[in-house]
């Protein structure tokens, strides 16, 4: 092939790769949008977290599809090489390298770090709780105390809906972790330390209907670790007041 022709052929491959990339990205994004990635979510925090996850999903599609398409095209185009035939001695390509460095840096800083920061800020907004609950972990169960009423429970965590709740978490023996999958909150219980986390439940429900409504220990704490969980029940405010006061629960 003359230089001109090979240049043309090359341009055609580049254009084709670009097109394929666009197609793959569009298809990928459609697939990502069509799939429901998240389990049952029932809190303000769940919305923030799931949005953050979805954003990353959307961003990673073009990155993954670019690497796969460009690599795939190169493999298909160059297949059938033999030991005596060398490829062209290309060692560098300014536009490709420059573009890559600029784009990945921009991607990392602007569309990953920045939303990460704002997501964190959002989680930390509204720092004033309506209700405080003390959570105490010990091998291998959870004890919940409602300081205002002095009520203490073990088998189940009962929470009012639409209230800003702060958990003050502590542990006596080893590290545990206070995790409610449906709320997307997790905070280690560290002996000698009181850690806190906040949540606003937004949907009624209980463990019997939704597996994710459970307090699950998420830090290895010994033999009973897997079984260190209790159900969560989210009730209306009125029901909650009643429950707190009553002997019912």
């Amino acid at each position, binding site marked *: 092939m003359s230089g001109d022709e090979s240049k043309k052929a090359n341009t055609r491959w580049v254009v084709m790769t670009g097109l394929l990339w666009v197609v793959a990205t569009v298809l990928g994004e459609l697939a990502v949008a069509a799939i429901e990635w998240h389990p049952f979510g029932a809190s303000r925090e769940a919305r923030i977290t799931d949005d953050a996850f979805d954003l990353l999903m959307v961003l990673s599609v073009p990155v993954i599809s670019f690497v796969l398409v460009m690599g795939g095209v190169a493999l298909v185009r*160059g297949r059938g090489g033999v030991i005596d035939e060398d490829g062209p001695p*290309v*060692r560098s390509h300014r536009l490709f390298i420059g573009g890559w*460095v600029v784009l*990945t840096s921009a991607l990392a800083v602007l569309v990953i770090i920045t939303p*990460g920061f704002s997501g964190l800020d959002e989680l930390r907004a509204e720092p004033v709780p309506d209700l405080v609950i003390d959570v105490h972990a010990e091998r291998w169960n959870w004890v919940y105390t409602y300081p205002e009423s002095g009520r203490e429970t073990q088998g189940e965590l009962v929470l009012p809906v639409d209230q800003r709740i702060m958990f003050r978490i502590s542990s006596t023996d080893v590290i545990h972790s206070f995790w409610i999958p449906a709320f997307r909150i997790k905070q280690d219980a560290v002996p000698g330390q009181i850690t806190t986390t906040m949540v606003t439940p937004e949907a009624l429900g209980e463990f019997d209907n939704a597996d994710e409504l459970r307090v699950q220990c998420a830090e290895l704490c010994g*033999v009973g670790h897997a079984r260190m969980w209790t159900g969560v029940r989210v009730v209306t405010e009125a029901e909650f007041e009643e429950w707190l006061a009553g002997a019912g629960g």
Partner: protein
Amino acid sequence: MNILRGLVGGALGYVVGAGLMMAIRSSAGGRAWEVESVTAGAWLFALSGWLLGVGVWRYWARGWFGRDVAPYTATGGRRYLDFDTDHKVIGIQYLVTFLGMFFMAGLFAMLMRWELMGNGEDIVGPDQYNSIMSLHGTMMVFVAVAATVGAFGNYVVPIMIGADDMAFPKLNAMSYWLVPPVLIALTASFLAGGYDTGWTGYAPLSVQSDVGGLFFNLAFFTLGLSSIVGAINIVVTVVTMRAEGMTWTRMPIFVWSIFVTAILSFIFTQFIGLAMLMVVLDRTAGTIFFDPAAGGSPLLYQHVFWFYSHPAVYIMILPAFGITLELVSTFTRKPLFGYKWAVGALLGIMSLSAVVWAHHMFTSGMAEALRKPFLASTELISIPTGLIFLCALGTLWLGKIRFEVPMLFALGVLFNFLIGGITGVFLADVPVDIQLQDTYFVVAHFHYVILGGGIFGLFGATYYWFPKMTGRSMSDRLGKVHFWWMMIGFNATFLPMFILGMQGMNRRVADYSPDLESANFAVSMGGFFLGTSFVIFLFNFIWSWARGPAAPADPWGSLTLEWQIPSPPPHENFTSPPLVLSDPYGYGDPDSVHADLARDGAKTVVEK
């Protein structure tokens, strides 16, 4: 037999150390014998005794006392059981030892998957499950940290830079012979009933665990010693032993990757030693580093541990990056694209890896203010890591591609690590990590990077350099079957784990809620499928070593120095010191010559 002498030496060392410890204990008014304190104290003595017995005394230390060192007489296969100082022997010792450890740990994984196949506790109780899981993780981490650097860093790097051996051959042998005590400690831990802390051994749980936990600490500590000694050796070798003309910018990228890995290793491994030491002291000497009731701090352990263990994940992956780029260049018959950017990427990853450790601690209760800086620094690592992909893609483009078995593994690394790396970015995002931390999403992430990246790289390197190391060829067809079997099995096992994690399955549990059963069943099936693929590898490996057809000096048409000398290389590697004239990526340039190996007229045999 030197190994026997080593065992006797180790036993004697233990007795002496134990005596000393018991004397100290009883003079302090305590009970003389208490297995943990005595063993912890005696371990260093036992280690020294083992090393002296296995060869340090005969071949080395006698000289310090003015005696003649014994002549080294082992030849043939016996060299592999001896205190041999040839870097090529040591490389093979590392390879075989750690492949063995890999298969052991893999069998533990099979047990785990068996238990997790169905909901409920079927095969093992939660206690045994935790032990098996911890041993699996620990041994695999040891493999990932030490196998590639130990085997190929030793075997290939000196030849690639045109040296006749490592800078400190005796220290090199010593760093290998520190590995059997690691195996002994792991076995002891297993026999003592294991430990239930995971490979991360978080305090205070690890302070309270059974005696098996002590052996875990000692094993990790000892592996750390071995890594530090080996790493210093590699750094000095690369800095001072390069052949004439082997400038920094002519070094093969694999040498660069091992060099940078070794720097990470000798700097950060001290911290795992410190972490283990503090746990051992808390267990046996009554200190209170991690006991909050007396003023200690559980989070301190996590900081020290991850200050090592995060850089350690790059110790696991950088050699695989080096291999991948090396293989991609060889099998596309093109120069490595953007060589300087690849080197820059390695150095960039090295520097950043020191400042990201707390991304493992986003939910740990550390100061809230630390979250943002660690989020940012972790995300920044994507940029240099991306450069590795840039160089790989640039090399593939326009390449004349040969799908040889090593190349398939290199492509496997690129595919798997892409997924592993991107999911790492998810985990670095604090809001997302809060939900996913300690779930199977994390388990899937790190299997994608360590197994999909690091271990695929290790197998690629094994297929690639096997002909050089043994002088025999491996079966190409079996190799291809192994690759596809492993690649499919791997993705079938670990892709669904991401979903499991998102659905709320936490890690380190023997039991889970019933609605996760079908996904877990699928994962287990994938796991067994993956496991069997290694039977093919093992057969190919052993059979080819014993019976395989003789390999030519340069079966792949590669230009780096190790392929310009016979397979297997002669003891002194080169008949005359090579003169390096350009970098080893002169594909497509007929005038380019990497090195002159026959400067003083000596001939080296090279056939294709």
